[in-house]
C-alpha cells in the first residue's frame, strides 16, 4: 500500500520534470493536469482503502535521506485521512485547472511546480522520520513559493512570495528545533524511536511551543498569519485553492502528529494555549475578511478563521485527553477533523469560483464586479453553495462540523480544572461570533460579486467558464451537500483516526435510524441533515405548487423603485465597503483602529465630498514592522564595516589577537 503510494509520488515528480520540457505548449497543460488528476485519484483510492480497510500498513524504508537512518514512510489512520484530504483537493484542483489553465499567461512557470507541489504534500503526510518529514515540508513551501511568484511582473506578488518564504522557513526552523529536542543528542530521528523516548517536563513544553509555532505559522494562526492573505491570492486560483484548502490542513496534520502522537501525555496548560489561540484566530480572521475588497483576500482571511475553529476543536480534544475523558476527546477531535475535511472542500470550491470570476472579468476587486449571476449563472449557483456551506448553514456540511464543535464545547462541565471550565464557554462565544460574522462576510462576497447591477464594463462583458472547470466545481459542491446530508458515514470513517490519537471514538453513527447523528446520547442532542433537507425541499415545493395552482402565477417586469429618480446609475448601489460599514463601526474601531474622516465641500463649491477610511493592521504594526525595521537598522549600521580602510581592518585583527592573548594571560 505504501509502496504503491510512493510509486505514484515518484510519477508526480517525474511529471514535474517532463513539464519543464513541454512547459509552454498548450498540449503541456492538458498532459500535466490530466496526469496529475489521474495520479491524485489513484492516491485517493489508496488512502480510502487504507482508512476504511487496514490502517496500520508496514513501514517502507528507502535508502535515501539520512545515510544511517534511511527514509521511513508509513500510512497509519491519521496519515490515511490526511492523504485522502490532500488528494481529494488535488484531484479537484487538477480537474479545475484543465480548463482554467488555458488563461495562464506564463504556463512554463506553473506547470513544472504544480505536480511537485502535490508530491511534496503527499510525502509530508506519509513521512515517518523527522528528516524526510522536514525535507518534504520545506520542499512543499519551496514549490508553493515558486507558484506564488508565477506572475512575478507584479511587484506585490514578489513581495508576497518573499514574506511567505521567510515565514515558511521560520516555521521549518522551529519544527527543526522541536525535532532536535525530540530526537535527543544521539539523533534517533525515526518517529517510532521518538515515540518510545518520552520527553519530560521542560523539554516536552519547549517541543510543544516550537511545534505550535512551526505548524501554526504554516496554518496561519493569528500572530503568524501575516503571509497568508498576501501569498494565497497571488498564486493562480487552482494553486491558491490547494494552498488554502489543502496545505493548511497538512500544517494541522503536522500539529496533530507532533502534539497528539509523538509527545504522549500532554500537560494541563497546553490545551488552554491552543484554545485561546484558536478562538482569537477565528474571531480576528473573519473580522479581517470583512474589511477586504479583494475577493481572494477575503477567502484567504476566512481560511485563517476556519483554521482558528479547527485549532479550537483540537485544543478542546487536548483538554479532554489530559483529563482522560476519551469519549469527549473523541467527539472534539472528530469535530475538528470533520471541519478539516469540510473546509478543504468548500474553500477549494470558493477559490475555483473566485478564479473563474477573475478570468471572466480580469479583476478581483468586489467594487468592480456585480450582476454576474445573469452572465455566469452556473458559477453563481456553485459559488452560492460554497458561501452557504462556509457560513455553516443547515443543509450543508459547514453546519454539521460547527454543530459537533458546539456539542463538544457543551461537554466542558466534565473538565475538573476551573480555568478550562471558564475558558471553554468564552472560546464558544468567540466561535459563535465568528460563525455569525462568517455568514455576514460571505453574504457580502456573494452579494457584491454576483448580485446587483454590474458596476464596470468588465463585469458587463463576463462570460460563463468552460465545462471542465464547472465539472470540478459541481463535483465539489455535490460533495459538500452529501457531507451535509449524511454526515454519519464520514464520522464513522474518522473513527480509527480518532482511536489512534485519543484512545477512544464516537459511538457508531450508521446504526442510528433515519441516518441522523447522535454524538453522545439520544436524549442529549441529535441532528438529521437528510430530514431537514427533505423537509425544506418538500415544504418549499408544496407551497410553490399550491400558490401557483390556487392563487396566481402571473408576473410582469418593471423598473426597480429608486424613490422615483429617473436614471439611477450603478454608482447608487451599495458597495462592499459601505456594506461592511456598520460592522466596521461596531468591531473595527477596536480591532483595526478604523478611522472614518469625511470632508464635505464648502456650500456652493462643486468639488465632490470625500470619505476616507483608514484601517491599520495592528498585528503587522506591532510584530512584523518592528522586526523589519530592526533588521534594516542592523544591516544599515553593520554596512559601514564594509567601507573601512586597510588600517582599520588590520587594527581589527590586531585587537582580536591582543584580546585573545589577554584571555590566555589572565585565565588559568
Amino acid at each position, binding site marked *: 500500500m505504501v509502496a504503491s503510494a510512493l510509486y505514484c509520488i515518484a510519477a508526480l515528480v517525474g511529471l514535474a520534470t517532463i513539464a519543464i520540457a513541454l512547459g509552454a505548449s498548450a498540449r503541456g497543460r492538458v498532459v500535466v493536469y490530466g496526469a496529475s488528476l489521474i495520479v491524485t485519484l489513484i492516491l485517493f483510492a489508496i488512502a480510502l482503502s487504507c482508512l476504511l480497510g487496514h490502517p496500520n500498513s508496514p513501514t517502507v524504508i528507502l535508502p535515501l535521506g539520512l545515510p544511517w537512518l534511511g527514509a521511513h514512510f508509513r500510512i497509519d489512520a491519521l496519515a490515511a485521512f490526511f492523504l485522502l484530504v490532500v488528494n481529494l483537493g488535488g484531484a479537484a484542483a487538477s480537474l479545475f485547472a484543465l480548463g482554467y489553465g488555458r488563461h495562464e499567461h506564463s504556463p512554463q512557470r506553473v506547470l513544472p511546480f504544480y505536480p511537485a507541489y502535490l508530491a511534496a504534500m503527499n510525502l509530508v503526510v506519509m513521512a515517518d522520520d523527522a528528516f524526510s518529514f522536514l525535507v518534504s515540508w520545506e520542499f512543499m513551501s519551496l514549490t508553493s513559493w515558486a507558484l506564488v511568484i508565477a506572475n512575478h511582473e507584479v511587484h506585490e506578488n514578489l513581495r508576497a512570495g518573499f514574506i511567505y518564504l521567510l515565514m515558511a522557513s521560520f516555521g521549518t526552523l522551529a519544527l527543526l528545533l522541536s525535532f532536535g529536542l525530540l530526537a535527543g543528542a544521539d539523533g534517533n530521528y525515526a518517529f517510532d524511536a521518538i515515540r518510545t523516548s518520552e520527553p519530560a517536563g521542560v523539554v516536552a513544553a519547549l517541543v510543544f511551543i516550537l511545534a505550535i509555532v512551526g505548524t501554526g505559522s504554516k496554518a496561519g494562526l493569528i500572530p503568524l498569519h501575516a503571509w497568508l492573505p498576501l501569498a494565497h491570492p497571488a498564486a493562480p486560483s487552482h494553486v491558491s485553492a490547494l494552498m488554502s484548502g489543502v496545505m493548511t490542513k497538512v500544517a494541522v496534520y503536522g500539529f496533530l502528529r507532533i502534539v497528539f502522537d509523538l509527545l504522549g501525555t500532554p500537560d494541563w496548560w497546553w490545551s488552554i494555549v491552543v484554545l485561546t489561540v484558536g478562538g482569537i484566530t477565528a474571531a480576528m480572521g473573519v473580522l479581517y475578511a470583512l474589511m477586504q475588497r479583494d475577493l481572494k483576500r477575503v477567502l484567504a482571511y476566512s481560511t485563517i478563521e476556519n483554521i482558528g475553529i479547527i485549532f479550537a476543536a483540537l485544543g478542546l480534544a487536548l483538554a479532554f485527553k489530559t483529563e482522560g475523558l476519551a469519549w469527549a476527546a473523541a467527539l472534539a477531535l472528530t469535530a475538528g477533523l470533520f471541519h478539516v475535511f469540510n473546509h478543504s472542500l468548500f474553500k477549494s470550491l470558493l477559490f475555483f469560483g473566485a478564479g473563474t470570476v477573475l478570468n471572466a472579468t480580469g479583476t478581483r476587486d468586489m467594487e468592480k464586479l456585480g450582476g454576474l449571476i*445573469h452572465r455566469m449563472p452556473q458559477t453563481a449557483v456553485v459559488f452560492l453553495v460554497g458561501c452557504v456551506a462556509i457560513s455553516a448553514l443547515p443543509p450543508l456540511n459547514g453546519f454539521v462540523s460547527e454543530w459537533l464543535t458546539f456539542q463538544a464545547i457543551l461537554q466542558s462541565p466534565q473538565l475538573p480544572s476551573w480555568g478550562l471550565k471558564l475558558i471553554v464557554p468564552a472560546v464558544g462565544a468567540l466561535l459563535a461570533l465568528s460563525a455569525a460574522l462568517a455568514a455576514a462576510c460571505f453574504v457580502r462576497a456573494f452579494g457584491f460579486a454576483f448580485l446587483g447591477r454590474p458596476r464596470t464594463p468588465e463585469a458587463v462583458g463576463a462570460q460563463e467558464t468552460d465545462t471542465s472547470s464547472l465539472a470540478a466545481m459541481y463535483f465539489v459542491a455535490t460533495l459538500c451537500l452529501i457531507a451535509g446530508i449524511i454526515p454519519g458515514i464520514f464520522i464513522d470513517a474518522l473513527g480509527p483516526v480518532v482511536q489512534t490519537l485519543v484512545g477512544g471514538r464516537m459511538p457508531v453513527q450508521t446504526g442510528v435510524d433515519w441516518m441522523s447523528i447522535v454524538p453522545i446520547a439520544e436524549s442529549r442532542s*441529535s*441532528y438529521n441533515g437528510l430530514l*431537514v433537507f427533505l423537509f425544506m425541499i418538500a415544504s418549499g415545493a408544496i407551497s410553490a405548487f399550491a400558490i401557483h395552482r390556487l392563487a396566481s402565477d402571473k408576473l410582469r417586469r418593471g423598473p426597480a423603485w429608486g424613490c422615483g429618480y429617473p436614471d439611477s446609475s450603478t454608482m447608487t448601489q451599495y458597495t462592499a465597503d459601505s456594506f461592511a460599514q456598520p460592522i466596521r463601526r461596531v468591531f473595527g474601531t477596536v480591532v483595526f483602529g478604523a478611522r472614518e474622516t469625511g470632508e464635505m465641500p464648502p456650500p456652493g463649491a462643486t468639488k465632490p465630498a470625500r470619505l476616507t477610511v483608514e484601517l491599520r493592521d495592528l498585528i503587522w504594526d506591532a510584530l512584523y514592522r518592528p522586526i523589519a525595521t530592526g533588521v534594516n537598522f542592523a544591516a544599515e549600521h553593520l554596512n559601514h564595516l564594509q567601507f573601512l580602510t586597510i588600517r582599520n581592518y588590520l587594527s581589527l585583527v590586531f585587537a582580536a589577537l591582543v584580546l585573545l592573548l589577554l584571555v590566555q594571560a589572565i585565565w588559568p
Partner: protein
Amino acid sequence: MAVIRDIALQGFQMLLVLLLAPLLTGFVRKVKARLLRRQGPPLLQPYRDLNRLLRKEVVLADNASWLFRVIPYFVFATTWIAASLIPTFRSGLLFSWSADLIAIIALLGSARFFQVLAGLDVGTSFGGIGSSREVMIASLAEPAMLMIVFSLALIAGSTQLSTMSAFMNSPEVGLRVSLGLGLIALTIVAIAENARIPVDNPATHLELTMVHEAMVLEYSGRHLALIELSAALKLLLYISLITCLFAPWGISSAAVDATSLLTGVAAYLVKLAAGGSLLAVFETVIAKMRVFRVPGFLGAALMLALLATLLRFVSRSF
C-alpha cells in the same frame, strides 16, 4: 397505529403553527391600537392581506434574477420547519429529534442569509441599506442566541428542546441566576430578530429607519405574501420558544388522550395571548433607538448570555 397518531400530531402542530401566526400578528396590532385608544384593524385583517397579496400579479424589477423569485419560498419553508419543531402544546413529537435548538437557530440563520441576498439582488440602495443593517444586527444577535443556548444546555444537560422543556418542567430546575439572565437576553434577541420597535419599526416605510422592510421593498404579490407570513411565523416561533423554555406548564411529552391534548392547546393559546399583549405593551412604552445604539443594546444581550453561561456554576455547582 402509534406511528399514524404521531404523524397526525406532527401534522396538526404544523397546521396549528401556520394558522396561528397571522392571528398573533393581528392580535398584537389590535392590542397596540387599543392601548393608543384607537379602533385598530380587525383581528383577521392579516388573513385578508395575505389573501389579497396571493392573488395579485407579481411586479419583478428588471435586474431581479431567478434567485430573487426562489428566495421567498425558501425563506417560508425554513421558517415554517423551524416553527413546527418547537414544542407548542406537546413535546416529544415524531420529528422533534431531527433538529435540536442549535439547528433551529441555524435554520433561521439561513433564512436571514437568503433574505439579505434578496435585498442585494435588485441593486438599489434600499436593499443595500436594509441588508447591511440586518447583517450588523445578526452578527450580534446570533452569538447572543447561541450563548443563551449554551447556558440553558449546560443547565438542562441537553440541547434537545423536548428534553429541555421536560427538565424545565421538572422540580430540580430551581431558581437560578443564569436562567433569569437567559430570559432577559432571549427577549432582547427576540425583539431584535423580529424587527420590533426598539430595533426596527415594523409599521413604517421611512427609509432611514427601515431594516427588515428595506430588504423586502422590491417584493410584491405572492412573494410578499410569503415574506409577510414567514415574518409572522418567526414572531410566533420566538414567543413559543420563550414559553416552552421558561413557561413549560401544560406541555407534556407523553400526553396522548384528547383531554390532555386540548388542555395543552388551550394553555398554548393563553401563553400566546399573554406574550402578544406583553409585546404590544412593551412596544407602545418604548421608542425606537438610533441604528448605531442597537449594537449597545444587543451587546448587552451578548454579555448577559455570556455571564449566564459563566455563572451557571455559581447557583448550584455540580
